[in-house]
């Protein structure tokens, strides 16, 4: 019979709190970097020069078909053999590069979902490809991409738990450390789980509010 020991948890609140902040930190930095990278790769996939398109496609396909854990190991242990890589940067670079590939696909789908006529109208008014993208296509694509992007960001927050494998002291790693001290897996991991749940739900709600705000005729 399992004996509950919830009273063991509160003493670790400061530790868990600090770990939550670190999870938030790598998540937010990776969301920003991954989005920038993904937006760039997405644009590269729809622009007219073939070799550039190929380059972006190679990046996307490569990263989408290997596990994130492997990417993290390659950076932390692989690159780490050549120059010092801190757990923080290994996690952030790994997550950003990995999520960037998925964001690129979302960006490409968003751009391609905008009616072809929009580009033709913009071009026929004398705008360059880049101007048309910037002023006409991308604003429409971003709005349509918000729901899938949110899903991707939620995934990223959960994926950030893998940073524990490159010894970054985020929620998951701290949870494991606490559990090895008090051997109360349910209490520890349910607590950690509740924090992940709260973070991800907040993110979803924030973006739903943002979507509603952007919804114009």
């Amino acid at each position, binding site marked *: 019979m399992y004996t509950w020991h919830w009273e063991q948890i509160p003493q670790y609140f400061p530790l868990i709190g600090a770990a939550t902040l670190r999870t938030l930190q790598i998540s937010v930095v990776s969301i920003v970097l991954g989005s920038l990278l993904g937006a760039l790769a997405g644009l590269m996939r729809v622009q007219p020069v073939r070799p550039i398109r190929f380059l972006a496609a190679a990046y996307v396909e490569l990263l989408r078909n290997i596990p994130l854990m492997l990417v993290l190991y390659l950076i932390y242990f692989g690159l780490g053999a050549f120059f010092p890589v801190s757990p923080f940067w290994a996690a952030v670079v790994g997550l950003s590069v990995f999520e960037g590939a998925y964001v690129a696909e979302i960006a490409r789908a968003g751009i391609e979902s905008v009616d072809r*006529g*929009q580009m*033709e109208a913009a071009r*026929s*008014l004398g705008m360059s490809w880049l101007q048309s993208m910037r002023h006409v296509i991308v604003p429409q694509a971003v709005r349509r991409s918000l729901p899938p992007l949110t899903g991707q960001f939620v995934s990223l927050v959960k994926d950030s738990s893998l940073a524990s494998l490159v010894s970054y002291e985020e929620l998951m790693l701290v949870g494991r450390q606490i559990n090895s001290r008090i051997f109360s897996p349910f209490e520890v991991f349910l607590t950690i789980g509740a924090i992940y749940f709260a973070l991800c739900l907040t993110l979803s709600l924030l973006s739903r509010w943002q979507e509603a705000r952007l919804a114009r005729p």
Partner: protein
Amino acid sequence: MVSIRGASRRFSGGHYGVRGITLDVSRGETLVVMGPSGSGKSTLLRCVNGLERLDEGEIIIDGMRVNHETTDWNKVREEVGMVFQGFHLFPNRTALENLTLPQTVVRRRPAAEAKTVARALLDRVGLGGKESRFPAELSGGEKQRVAIARALAMNPKIMLFDEPTSALDPEMILEVLEVMRDLAGEGMTMLVVTHEIGFAREVAQRAVFLDEGLLVEAGPARDLIDRPETARCRAFMQRILRRPGGESVRPGPASESSWT
């Protein structure tokens, strides 16, 4: 003003959009392009502003040879306005913003000046007071008039119209044709793909008939419509004149417009 010399455009798969078309449009002239669907009318228009690339031949617009490798299409398109069958207004921008955006981005006009131009043009196409409407809040006819005003805001030397009224409900066709007629009256050079016989008769100086990518017949608009010389053109005219509502915008006592 526009000189098209032996223009051909081949699509992947080998069939031609247009084949060896030679055509001149002089300054201030309105030329109507007619023909069955798939005859290359749209392709011809799209070649003039570079939305389609020419495979053979050349097009010269106001002295600029435009199908050369080194053609700066952005420069050319600044001088050539285009109006599409499907309007293609920017849906996330108001009517006014649809007109100011290209002015500020391409012509680099200050925002205030762009707004003044935009207001005047919207007024001119009968849409004063609807500046802050989004495209979804406008009727088809209103959308197309905004699209025309948007093209005019760039001060083009030539206007291309690709079936501008084909996507409109019948009661909205006239309001768009009115705007186009006024424009022609002011001396704009216009190349118009349309099946509106009434408009072609009254407004166009010349008309050409395309079929299967070839220029089959060219002549004064009235002659081409009323006395076509080739069998193919005659058959086409008979078909569109017979279709219900085919002559709905022809001047006549029943018409509410001022075509006469």
